[in-house]
């Protein structure tokens, strides 16, 4: 039979009772989480920016959206079970946020487009044709469905093969190729007015 000994609580127990140990552990976990997030930041931050820029076609807005996406990702990083899926997760967050921003600022963009149309163009005809082409292309991109658009944007990004895009979006390679083909074909159909004006570069 064991004897019972009366002992004084140690400082660790006192700290546990007072909640200091919990707070220390929580702070350490938060710091570790932050370090892990920052390790991924250098690689994934530009990805979020580029996705946002592909949707918004504006660097300032794209940076706002990218920062918002990174902030959201950081806040929910603890809840992400499979950390290897971080890139795909961030891409989807940035893409959704960029789409929301594009919808909300649609009227403002229309105003700016009208102002840009009225602005006198002193540059060459090629530049005017190019800006008009970009405008039409942006409009055609906005009319694409999100799933086609996301594949198209990711495939246009340097350093992303179709295999990587498929892995990132949890799709098969055939689905990615099919969506990419559909997206390009629809864009070409919507931009047929530029067929005579475009020249191979």
């Amino acid at each position, binding site marked *: 039979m064991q004897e019972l000994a009366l002992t004084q609580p140690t400082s660790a127990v006192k700290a546990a009772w007072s909640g200091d140990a919990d707070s220390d552990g929580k702070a350490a976990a938060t710091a570790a989480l932050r370090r892990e997030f920052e390790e991924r930041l250098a690689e994934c*931050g530009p990805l979020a920016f580029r996705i946002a820029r592909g949707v918004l076609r504006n660097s300032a807005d794209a940076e706002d959206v990218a*920062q918002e996406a990174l*902030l959201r990702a950081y*806040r929910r990083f603890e809840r992400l079970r499979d950390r290897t899926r971080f890139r795909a997760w961030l891409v989807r967050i940035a893409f959704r946020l960029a789409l929301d921003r594009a919808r909300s600022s649609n009227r403002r963009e229309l105003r700016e487009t009208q102002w840009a149309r009225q602005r006198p163009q002193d540059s060459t005809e090629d530049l005017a044709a190019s800006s008009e082409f970009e405008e039409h292309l942006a409009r055609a991109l906005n009319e694409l469905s999100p799933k086609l658009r996301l594949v198209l944007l990711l495939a*246009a*990004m340097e350093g992303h093969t179709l295999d990587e895009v498929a892995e990132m979006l949890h799709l098969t390679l055939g689905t990615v190729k099919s969506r990419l083909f559909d997206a390009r074909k629809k864009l070409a159909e919507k931009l047929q007015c530029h067929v005579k004006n475009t020249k191979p570069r």
Partner: protein
Amino acid sequence: MSCEKYKAALIEAAAIGEDAASDASAAVRAHAESCPSCAADLAQQRSLLAAIDTNLARTMNAPIPAAMLQRFEARLALKEPSRSLNLSWLYAGVALATAAAMILFALSHQRAHKSNSQIATLAQTAKSTSDHRPEIMTAILQPASPEEIRRDREQHRLPTAHIASASTTLMRSEPEVLVPPDEQMALDRFVAGGNARREFVVALATPVHQAVAPSFKDLEIPDITTAEIVIQPIATETRR
């Protein structure tokens, strides 16, 4: 013209790319090799798609703003995650409290609406019964005037607080308790009987400690007088 059937497939052939193997695109390409017009159209479609790809690539590979990550880290330092978590809990609590308040308000509103409809139903019932018994209902529904209250107070010397509470009860526009119509009729009859014998009701309503103790007259009990007792032997009957 034989080229017409290839016109629609030209975009597909251009979009699918030269590397991809497709029967349709192969047929279009084979036709374009022998048809200068379709070859020119195919080249234009390819140049259009090349322009699209070039534009997309330029957009997607634009240089990253130099200090974007530094700005984000500074923003991250300003917003502590624990604080944001606390705020999220705070927002959730406020939302929950608001929802609870809205539910309570809706329930109370619904209950008030229901009681109003019940009162209206009872009022209609009472009105229909008062048509048959006008003298009873008018006696009950009329509130007591201050003169009547004062008169009752003087006559029966009821306590002021008791009369005040009775008068406020009588003068209230809304009934205190909702009762079924049959019970209401029984109550009406009881109150009408009480009105007929008001003194009896007042005596019942008077608290016991304030009731006047009955005064008894001294009883005069006369002494008990007994008549003289004469004891006589039983007359013996004639012996046999």
